[in-house]
């Protein structure tokens, strides 16, 4: 079936199968940042924004996206890079495979929460797993990022 979606501000018509998942649709459309890590909605790697809300693209049917607005990290490149610089300065990306989904959640958090505590930050980001870094460096980077804003 055909769906009309806006991806990173660009209106696009895509042909998708009825059971196709958004993560696969987006990768097939050339968005290499989309990663799948689990297939069970546990890891957060595939996080994109749908109408501005961080959402797991591996658990979203593409067919349901007709008329919706999708943002991948490629669509917020400047802001993503600003945070990525802080993350990389901490060494908090390590293998980097989980970073795009993690960064999309961080950027969404920044929009959603005002002056969050460490606990609130950790709570917001809990759905994003990382096996490399042990999370502490990511927290340091997030806190620096939030300070930069204020």
């Amino acid at each position, binding site marked *: 079936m055909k769906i009309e979606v806006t991806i990173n501000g660009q209106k696009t018509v895509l042909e998708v199968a009825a059971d196709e998942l958004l993560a696969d649709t987006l990768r097939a459309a050339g968005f290499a*940042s989309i*990663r799948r890590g689990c*297939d069970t909605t546990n890891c957060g790697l595939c996080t994109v924004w749908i109408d501005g809300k961080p959402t797991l693209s591996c658990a979203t049917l593409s067919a349901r996206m007709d008329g919706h607005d999708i943002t991948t990290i490629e669509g917020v490149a400047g802001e993503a890079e600003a945070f990525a610089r802080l993350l990389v*300065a901490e060494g908090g*990306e*390590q293998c*980097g*495979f989980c970073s795009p989904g993690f960064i999309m959640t961080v950027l969404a958090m920044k929009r959603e929460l005002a002056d969050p505590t460490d606990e609130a930050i950790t709570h917001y980001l809990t759905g994003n797993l990382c096996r490399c870094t*042990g999370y502490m460096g990511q927290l340091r980077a997030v806190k620096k990022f939030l300070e930069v804003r204020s």
Partner: protein
Amino acid sequence: MKLVGKGVPKIDGLAIATGKPLYTEDLAPANALVVKILHSPHASARIKAIDTAVAEGVEGVACVLTHKDVPKVRFTLAGQTYPEPSPYDRLILEDLVRYVGDEVAIVAAVDERTAQRALELIKVDYEVLTPVLDFEQAIGHPSVVHPETDLHCNFDIGHDRLRNIAATHKVEVGDIAAELAASDVVVEETYYTQAQAQAMMETYRAFSYLDHAGRLVVVSSTQIPFHVRRHLARALELPASRIRVIKPRIGGGFGGKQTAVVEIFAAIVTLRTGRPAKIVYERKETFTATNSRHAMRLKVRLGADRGGLIRAIDVQCLSDTGAYGEHAPTVFSVAGEKSLPLYNKARAVRYAGHAVYTNKLPAGAMRGYGATQGCFAVESAVNKLADALGIDPCELRRKNIIRAGEIDIYHNRILGSSSLDRCIERGRELIGWLDKYPRRDLGGKVRAVGMAVTMQGSGIAGIDTASAEVRLNDDGNYTLLLGSTDMGTGSDTILAQMAAEVLETSMDTIIVHAADTDVSPFDTGSYASSTAYVTGMAVVKAAGELREKIIVAAAALMNAAPAEVTFDGSILTGPAGATITLAELAQRSVVGPDRRQLSGYASHGSPVSPPPFVAGFAEVEIDKETGKVELLDYIAVIDCGTVVNPNLARIQAEGGLVQGIGLALYEDVKYDERGALQTNSFMTYKIPSRKDIGTVRVFFEESYEPTGPFGAKSIGEVVNNTPAPAIVHAVRNAIGAWLTRLPLTPEKVYAAMVK
């Protein structure tokens, strides 16, 4: 030093963090066939018949391969230096399946949907056999996991096929029985460590194609490109010269990718069809059909005198290698080799036992590589000994640990560097040991602290070799060619730091290339904590050689002796103020007749494997009503020699500690009665999330390792080892009972508490 010791950001950090197409799957050709594997539903079964006709008839299916269609030469998938100590006990596909998940057929089709459909249409008639599932019952079990007679071992590893023994190992120094008998205090306990999933975020994947010369090119997310090439050559009966293996960015390895899990499947499809092929394992396949940490049972006996000197250490170990013997003998030996030498007042030590086959997921390499298991058992026993002697466990370590300059009884080698004594002292202060040890009862909850120390190695002594080349390019920058594999650790960056330090240049003038078996100098790969130490030394030597050649070349142009020329990284200065820039020298080295591009090339292997050390301290809070253990604080003080890049070292440490915390508290491996892995997703197998870990704090107590590059030792694995014993110790101090089986689930803690 200008660069070594600085927290330089990773050279590929920004690109990988922002999702650029750099990983294996991103680079696969769009027309690659999709390869899928039919996995066995049975733990042990003979394939009586397999019918692929219907599957092959599906439009878009390129090939369906079964045991009838593959070479009959046995191999190992263990990524180890040839000749590998692991048994050659595999075929690509076989008519006998040995665990739930074992490969039965390979399907390749134009897309995923078609491949999946074809998989479902393969009809297999199995004769189901009785499996061996309990590793403590494996030796002498009536069911034999490997009945085949063509199994081969390169060494005498004590393999006893008919008794399900994959490897036997024994080290004994001194008279253990006499020393135990003469000890004032003897403690004894049996400990169990579970299998653990590496759980790297990028699952296993590879793609392959034939190049312009008809050679097989395999691109893989692997830690061991050169070993993969050798595996492929053997298993596919192809000359290694016909194979090229390329490693792009890797989304985590943790030892899992030291075993070549999927490369052969893509490669055989390309060979059979002539077409590009790719294979990407799903998470469920990664849990059920790849490899994990070896589960172990370790019986420890410690003997000590009244004054607290440990005189005898005896460890009897049984290791579960599952259906295949990848890394079985070596993980087994490391469990003793990296835990017993810590206590060097011992007059007798013994480490012995077997790695056994069972009809379960094969075990393989995982961060810590046996040292994690050995450390858990020995450190728990040492803490138990401290209890028995009434000595503070930090004080007991102070009395017994090996010191720099001592000869260790286990290896009979001199320890070149250690600051473990300072690590213990500092960690003790940072956690507030004097105020918190052993416990504080808060009413409904109780808080307590615990500790452990550990050691690992740096590279494999006397075996592994790394090579590196540094070239001076035409415009005065450098190319650093490596065969090691950065799997996210930042090794490409720290190796560039080392080269830049020697050449007195900046990071941006060093181009790093790794790894491609056609181009890269040979390197055994990134494992055994070898990259910073072994490859690092090769880089230092190669850069040093190039530096000398640059000076010699400049001296020739100036008609001077090399000793008269100085080089500050950009300008060469000779007698009477003559100068030439590096850029000019570089240009002149590649123009005209009788020129020679300058390069440094070196190989390095080490006769020793200097251990890094960690002192780990845990503070836990236990809910008395539920038995839930909450980790409040974890402190690790680390001796990795010179810290080459503090930011990257700290992250390596934090990440390794959290994997150790997962092993201690959460990561539970469960099979059903038929031998199917129940914990086959992140839904059921819980790795720590950011809410589970409390505060993890890392500190360094530098030492100087004389055999390491700039005094450095390794850090990758050692950080994995202390959490389990330190947390078990803290739990013991909280509730008064020792737990001996990981992980410390609330059920186990509660049961221990009320017993």
